[in-house]
């Protein structure tokens, strides 16, 4: 009798285990699925985080030169440039040069592709004059506070910084347009009007700028409200 009871218990236990195995995945299967999910997540993350295959060009001042690597900085941003045997070097006169001609303090334009560590694998490095990369144009939205009728000079106070002011010169090359892009005459500009000016500093006179374009922000179809009499 005890033997029968023993058999019953063993049978019961084995049946329970069999159902348990079929109801939940085994440890190996679970690990496989976890690995698969992790792989898929990695692939998606790589798509988001890996650098694009588009070519890149970085400007920067050389701060360090190592055997196969150059470190540059531009606007407080550091960029590591990796060089190889196939990297081409060009000097300021557009002549081919060598890696050894690069010096700390030079400004270079490095062209190539980003690698996995966001460094640039440089294919071409051009030593450039830093001034050639400058864009001295300034875009200022402001209000005309003074405009000369005898000379092409006006004073503008920027809306962002009312403690500042710009003395702006215009000439026949200055393009004056309204919001629609249509050309208007300088007579349309008057004190109190709001404009956007694209200006460049006058190299001869300090704090004076030359306007290449003026866009009037005043609406051309301004309709003054007509008072209505309510009954």
């Amino acid at each position, binding site marked *: *009798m*005890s033997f029968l*009871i*023993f058999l019953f*218990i063993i049978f*019961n*236990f084995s049946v*329970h*285990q069999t159902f*348990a195995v079929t109801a939940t*995945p085994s440890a190996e299967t*679970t690990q496989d*699925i*976890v690995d*698969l*999910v992790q792989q*898929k*997540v990695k692939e*998606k993350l790589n798509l*988001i985080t890996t650098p*694009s295959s*588009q*070519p*890149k*060009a*970085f*400007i920067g001042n050389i701060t360090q030169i190592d055997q196969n690597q150059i470190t540059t900085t531009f606007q407080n941003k550091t960029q590591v440039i990796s060089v190889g045997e196939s990297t081409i070097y060009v000097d300021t006169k557009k002549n081919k040069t060598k890696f050894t001609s690069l010096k700390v303090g030079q400004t270079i*334009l490095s*062209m*190539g*592709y980003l690698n996995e560590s966001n460094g640039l694998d440089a*294919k*071409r490095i051009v030593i*450039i004059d830093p001034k*050639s*990369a*400058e*864009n*001295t*144009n300034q*875009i*200022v*939205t402001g209000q005309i506070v003074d405009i000369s009728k005898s000379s092409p000079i006006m004073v503008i106070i920027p*809306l*962002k910084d009312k403690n500042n002011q710009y003395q702006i010169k215009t000439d026949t090359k200055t393009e004056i347009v309204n*919001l629609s*892009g249509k050309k208007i005459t300088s007579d349309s500009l008057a004190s109190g009007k*709001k404009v*956007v000016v*694209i200006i460049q500093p006058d190299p001869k006179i300090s704090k004076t700028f030359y306007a*290449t*374009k003026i*866009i009037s*922000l005043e609406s051309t179809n301004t309709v003054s409200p007509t008072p209505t009499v309510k009954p």
Partner: protein
Amino acid sequence: MYPFYHQLVPICGIIYVNSMIKELILAIILGSLLGLGVTGGYLALHKKDIKNNPSKQIEITTPTNTPATTISETPKQTSPISISSPESDALVSTDQITIKGTTSPNSLIIITTASQTFSDKSDAKGNFSVAIKLDSGINSVKISAIDQSNNQFDTSTNITYSTAKI
């Protein structure tokens, strides 16, 4: 004649054997209960572990055509002006490119390179697309958006135009 206690020996033996069977049955029942208890405890702990570590929770479903994993994109932070194309520090082989981005609706967009100025307006959704012409070499491109309240937002990007093979 045997003494009376001699007759008790077989009776005690039967009683002793009977008590052994009972103990055996009791032991088997207790053993099976212990086994069930251990199994139940293991399953309960396993269930708790899955609950505490959702990463371990596996849901087996029938395969469908939809991707197995979907990563929901976090909504992009809205800024006064953002450039979607071209990428920052892009190297292009043509001097004609289009600057695309988003800003406030119906804003005036002004883009300058070192030598030229371009202007346009953003649409009702704030999208803009302005074709510009690049100078040879590196171009520091300044982009400004002036909204309908005359607030100005600025950004800039470097784009290099070169026909050299990279």
